[in-house]
C-alpha cells in the first residue's frame, strides 16, 4: 500500500505541501524575526524521525532584522549540500519556552527512497518494529 507516493519526507511544518518557494520561505522567516526568534540552518543525510540533531550550517543567526541575509545563507547551504535535507529552524529563547518554535524543510534530495519497516521477532510471538531509512544502507557520501 502506498500511503506517501514519492516517499516525500514529512517532518516539520509545511512538509505535506509542495516545496516552498523562496518568496514563501522569506515570508516565514519574516514571521520568525518579528517574534525575535533566532533562525538557524541545519542539514542532514540521515533524516530518521528520531535523528533530532542535524548538522548546523554555521552559527544560529542572532539579531537579524531582515530575512535577506538568511536566504543568502540558505542558498549557500543548498549550493554546498545540494542533495541533502536542509531545514530552517527558529529558536524561541524566551524564558519558559526555550525551544524551537518553527522548523521547516527548504531542500530535499531529488530521489527520496523513504523508510522501510523492519519487523524483528522476539520472545513468544512479540514483534519489535524498527523504522529504517533505505538511504542509510549506503555510505555517507553516496546516500542521495
Amino acid at each position, binding site marked *: 500500500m502506498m500511503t506517501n507516493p514519492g516517499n516525500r519526507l514529512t517532518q516539520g511544518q509545511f512538509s505535506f505541501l509542495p516545496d516552498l518557494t523562496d518568496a514563501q520561505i522569506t515570508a516565514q522567516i519574516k514571521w520568525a524575526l518579528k517574534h525575535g526568534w533566532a533562525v538557524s540552518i541545519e542539514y542532514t543525510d540521515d533524516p530518521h524521525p528520531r535523528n533530532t540533531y542535524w548538522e548546523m550550517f554555521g*552559527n544560529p543567526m542572532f539579531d*537579524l532584522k*531582515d530575512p*535577506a*541575509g*538568511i536566504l*543568502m545563507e540558505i542558498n549557500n547551504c543548498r549550493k554546498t549540500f545540494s542533495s541533502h535535507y536542509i531545514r530552517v529552524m527558529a529558536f524561541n529563547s524566551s524564558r519558559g519556552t526555550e525551544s524551537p518554535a518553527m522548523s521547516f524543510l527548504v531542500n530535499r534530495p531529488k530521489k527520496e527512497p523513504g523508510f522501510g519497516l523492519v519487523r524483528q521477532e522476539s520472545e513468544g510471538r512479540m514483534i519489535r518494529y524498527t523504522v529504517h531509512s533505505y538511504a542509510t544502507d549506503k555510505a555517507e557520501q553516496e546516500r542521495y
Partner: protein
Amino acid sequence: MNDAKTNSSAVPDKIDLEAEFQSSHIQEVLDKLDRELVGLKPIKTRIREVAALLLVDRVRRQFELTSETPTLHMCFTGNPGTGKTTVAMRMGEILKRLGYVREGHLVTVTRDDLVGQYIGHTAPKTKEVIKKAMGGVLFIDEAYYLYKPENERDYGQESIEILLQVMENNRDDLVVILAGYKDKMDRFFQSNAGMRSRIAHHLDFPDYSPDELMVIAKLMLAAQNYRFSAEGEKAFAEYIPLRMGLSHFSNARSVRNALDRARLRQANRLFNSRTKTLNKMDLMTLEAEDILASRVFVDGKLDGDPASGVIRK
C-alpha cells in the same frame, strides 16, 4: 488583439507626482532634517536629489519603465564632529520612507567588527555583520583602517573583497556607507579602485561656521532643558572662535564637551551658593561665569591638556 491588451492592463495614463510625493511623507523627513541639522547645505541638497530620484523611479515603475535599481552606496568624508553618523542614521529612515530599504535600521561597525584575528576568521565575521545590516544601512566608520598597505598579510583586504561582492550583488538588500577623514579616505580609494567605482555618492561634510556652532549649542542645550543667559550666550560666542583656533577642534563634538564642562561649573556654582533659594530658572541657566572660567579663556589651553599642567576643576 494588442490594443485590447494595452487597454486592459493596469498601466495608468497620467500620474500625479504631487500626490505621490504627499503619500510618501518624504517632506516630513526632509523638514525634520532641515530643522534638526544645522548647516550642511551640500549634504541636504544631495539627500533631496536622492529622494527625488527614488520618487521618480517609483513613478516610472508604474508606467513599467524598468530601470536598474540605482546604487546608493555612499561615502561620507569630513572632519570629526561634522555630523556624519547623525546623517547616516537619518539616511536609514529616509531610504525606508522611499521604499529603497525594507527596515531602515543602522548597523555601525569599525574595522574590529569586520576583520578577524587569524586565517579564516574574517569571512564569517564580515558576513555576519552584513547579514545583520541587510534591509538597512551598514555604516563603516573610519573605513580606511580596513586597508593596511604596510602589512601585506593583513586580513582587511579579505573583508573589502567580501564587501565589494555584497555591494554589487545585494544592492537591493543593503546600503553601505563608508565614513572617514577626507585625506585618509582618498588614500584608501586610491588603493581600492573597485571600492571607489561602486560608490555612487561621495559626500564631503563641510566644517561648521561659528554662527552655526552657536545654533548647534543652543539646540543641544534645549534638548537637555538648559539655556544661556544673555551674558552667557555672549561669552559662549566669544568662546567658539577661541576654541576653533586650538588643536583637536572637532566641531559639534567640541561644542558638546564645552557645554558639558559648563554644566559641571554651573552645578558647582549652585552648590557653593546653596544658602540661597533657587528657582527653576536658576537650575536651567548657564551664566557667563560658567563659560568664562574655561581654561580656553584663562590661558588659551584646553582643560586637561597635558601641556597645561594641573587639571583645573
